[in-house]
């Protein structure tokens, strides 16, 4: 238990550092799609909600878990969808295509 906690803190710290370094390099041009993408990734919380709803430990937890899945899934679907739509619109003048 104690070890788990320390490991989790390590993971959090390293992920935060990686996140800061990687995201600092994102062009301001793409800050709107960046926000919708991180929002979609954040909806990975759906994993916790699925377990909660599926394990069926109590009525309360199943109900809350089910609502939570709906909320998170709409973020996953909507978030990736609109990010891709936005990115498709960004085109260079001419020259090298992606």
């Amino acid at each position, binding site marked *: 238990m104690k070890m788990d906690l320390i490991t*989790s803190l390590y993971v959090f710290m390293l992920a935060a550092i990686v996140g800061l370094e990687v995201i*600092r390099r994102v062009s301001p041009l793409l800050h*709107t799609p960046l926000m919708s*993408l991180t929002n979609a990734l954040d909806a990975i919380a759906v994993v916790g909600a699925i377990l909660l709803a599926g394990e069926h430990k109590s009525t309360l937890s199943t109900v809350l878990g089910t609502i939570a899945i709906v909320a998170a899934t*709409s973020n996953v*679907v*909507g978030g990736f969808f609109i990010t891709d739509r936005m990115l498709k619109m960004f085109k260079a003048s001419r020259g090298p295509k992606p």
Partner: protein
Amino acid sequence: MTPFPTDSIIELTYLIATVLFVMSLKWMSSPTTARHGVWAGELGMLLAIVGTLLNRDIRDYKWVVIALVLGTIIGVPLGKVQMTAVPQRTALSHAFGACCVTLVGTAEFYLRAPAVPKFMMSVLSMEVILGSLTFTGSLMAAGKLQEILPQRPIIFKGQNIVNLGMLLVAIGVAGYLVFHPDHTYLFPVLLAIPLLFGVMMIIPIGGADMPTVISLLNAYAGLSAAAMGFVLDSKLLIVAGALDGASGLILSVNMSKAMNRSFSNVLFGGFGQEQTGAKGAKETRPVRSASPEEAAEILAVASKVVIVPGYGMAVAQAQHKVRELYDNLTKRGIDVKFAIHPVAGRMPGHMNVLLAEADIPYDKLLDMEEINGEFPQTDVALIIGANDVTNPAARTDSSSPIFGMPILDVDKAHTVMVIKRSMAAGFAGIDNPLYYLDKTLMLFGDAKGFVGSIVRELSGGGNHG
């Protein structure tokens, strides 16, 4: 049945998903690779969800499947909204994310109570406090952006003290629960106070502060998800939450810098307030105004034009007309660029998305640092629906409320044209000395209509070769 190492497979999908998530953000660094980023994110998400569904602790798939289908049905229209509605859509999705986190946190508390270990209770409190304040705060922000709620900041005496007091009470209750988790009746308080706080936090916010607020809510949403990762001991969720939190943090810092606010000012929701004291002595000096014909003539003989879009362009839906203007001028061999201030619009990067939607190549969209050096060589700076981000008082007048805010140096261009409805002051209520310069021409009218008239003049003015 042969024994199948399901648990290891699930863990492996989570590990791959984590890597894909980091790569996804890495590919966002350039518009040429950004779409790979979306695909990596989608693949990671799919793997993680399928992996989770394999979990043998799941006894009943009925509700899971119903919820997944329902969420998809809600998600599709949310992915199809108009580009002008992206800020409110983003705020709404922060609310959904926070809603999920708060509900899971609540369920976990009641499943574990009364015996919740101290550390568990601490992160659980953090999860539900951040989650619930982000939930109502984001709903409020979305309401203001969608103009369902009044956009005017509502300010009353002692607002900050009330808000800070509420937050302290919530933290106090959380602290008590850490040591006495058996007092479960206190848990609803831990939800209610931040829910109210979220509303109170957004009440004093005006439209121009939205980019900062949305970024901050993004950071809160990420941190609450990371806290949920600690509660569930899910490394994948910790990583995703930390990445989202880092992204929100960077954007918040960027936005606060672009508005010359200290970061603590932003953190404690001290938005809006400073500006209310704006005592811009109303000037009645004369301005020079011009007609579309005159504007077109000046543009036609320019060799370098910089267009400065602001929220007014988004409101007037003028981006497609601006694109026509861009095409016309470019065809004449005129160098046309766009100057994007970090806080132009209602969320970070808002202008870029609108202009990209209108098919303007992204290499013509330059941010403040890239473009500012070019204004002295610019013949015409054309400002469309932007105000405070071009106000030279920010550079020169130390008594101005926006003094010190980085601005676009449009006043260094040879000629400045400002498309504006009237002489009314901008969001901050500050007069803009730019408008009284000799080199400035005011083009009064609706942004879309006026740009349209200029384009008509340019293409019909007998200039076709």
